[in-house]
């Protein structure tokens, strides 16, 4: 049985940048555990020597010529931003700097 502890759930929420309440974490603990139980059936399959499939197509390194083309203007790129200052995306302070 693939159990998952509440500490693990909290850790994963932290990695995923989700601020969840204790109650939400506990509901997710149950739901994740039952999904992991379902997944157990493929964890037991013998896949020794089987190469993984990351992608259905045998395409590799698809590149276009390195030529300048028109893209979004700065104005268009910033148009949907929640906060903008001096033509840049504005975010709260990082590393404890004063804003």
């Amino acid at each position, binding site marked *: 049985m693939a159990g998952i502890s509440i500490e693990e*759930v909290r850790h994963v929420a932290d990695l995923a940048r989700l601020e969840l309440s204790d109650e939400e974490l506990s509901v997710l603990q149950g739901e994740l555990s039952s999904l992991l139980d379902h997944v157990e059936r493929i964890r037991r399959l013998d*896949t020794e020597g089987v190469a993984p*499939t990351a992608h*259905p197509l045998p395409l590799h390194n698809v590149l*276009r010529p390195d030529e300048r083309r028109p893209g979004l203007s700065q104005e268009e790129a910033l148009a949907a931003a929640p906060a903008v200052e001096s033509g840049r995306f504005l975010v709260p302070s990082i590393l404890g700097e004063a804003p």
Partner: protein
Amino acid sequence: MSLLDEGVVAIAEAVRNRRARAAEVVEESLSRIAAGDDELHCFHTVMADEARRRAAEVDAAVAAGRDPGPLAGVPVALKDNLCTKGTVTTCSSKILEHWVPPYDATVVERLSAAGAVAVGKTNLDEFAMGSSTENSAFGPTRNPWDTTRVSGGSSGGSAAAVAAGFVPLALGSDTGGSIRQPASLCGVVGVKPTYGLVSRYGLIAFASSLDQIGTFAVTVRDAAAALEVIAGHDERDSTSLDEAAPELVPSLSGGVEGLRIGVIEDFVADVSASTQAATAAAADALASAGAKVEATSVPEVLHGLPAYYVIAPAEASSNLARYDGVRYGLRVEGPDVATMNARTRCAGFGPEVRRRIMIGTYALSAGYYDAYYGQAQRVRTLVVRAFERAYRDFDVLIAPVTPSEAFRLGEKTANPLEMYLSDVCAVPSNLAGHPAVSVPFALGEAGLPVGVQVLAPALGEPLMLRVAAALEAAAPAGVRGPVRPGGRKEAGGA
């Protein structure tokens, strides 16, 4: 019968030959939406003004002696995870509730260049994660055959809009059945093409190695005609196949004489008796039409669902990392960037999206990566090999689409895993990157539509759709839309 009910090919022909005006066809579509969509909620946004302007352009082109294209004047509904320049694109999520994309998806451009007229953006499960549209942040879409039931999902709004006769054509996306399952539940045709055949540029990413855009229509011919328009190489999608759009419509009437068709028998335990009966009846119909039909076992397809529910959330957790409250979408302020990110994501994502992000993050996290994600990718290889084996013996395969007819709203929301089981027959094709189509074939319990799935190897669309057309021709009357909401009487398109 109104021209709108005669479908994609008939409308375009009439508009191109000046027997009808795009403006009239579009106006009728808009007025049906206005009259009926309060009850069904297929649409998040109706693009009435833009649609009228666009229809007038199509008519002006015809009047000036220019050909507006193979979809001239055809009203089309777009799933709201397809970017439309200048029109809000929500993905049914609070995190994108007010987002206006600065560009059109390639498929939107191609439809427009072919003369089609976008009339609105349709409801879906948030970020296309779900099988009922009940995960939409803005309320579910109801099934036009019975408004107490779900439309299926995630492309439920698109399927129901076609089933209700609001539009003759709609686009959806299919990551693990999200076109085929709602098509089956709504009694319309839904095509999931070969991975890479249709550009994903401008499709908001869910699981990038699985996502594929496809078409909904009442008939196979109409769905195929629209697929011809949106398919073909696009340099803006690095996973786009270097293939021209295939010719599909001319070969649809070729019949199934002599084709080798396998009936996948491994889903029997997972589907309802009426669903199983529909698949068996389809097999009989194809045999009567001259195909060599045989039951076959492809047991690895049953590994598809657990592999999918590791791979798809893993890719989703990575794709959805971009919603961080910085460049677009919702922001909930916090004292520092990390807190702002976490508060934004929690306020913006609904329960199912959070659940998938959590599953995916766990499956990709240190210590579990190989046990879950690595193993799921190796199992994906087993599924691909199993199909390769099956296609040595058969030209196409048939199977159920989904375990049952449309279920009641709320019936499966309490147990996420039970909802996930809706995808069991659909996900193997996504894992393999193969095409598959749902064709309305029977009426099951409570007179609700049941589809049958035709599966083919990569780029097998011409043959797959030929078989689908043969099934359509053999299907009993009354198994498909359009239906008027609340009533089950066929309104046209028999």
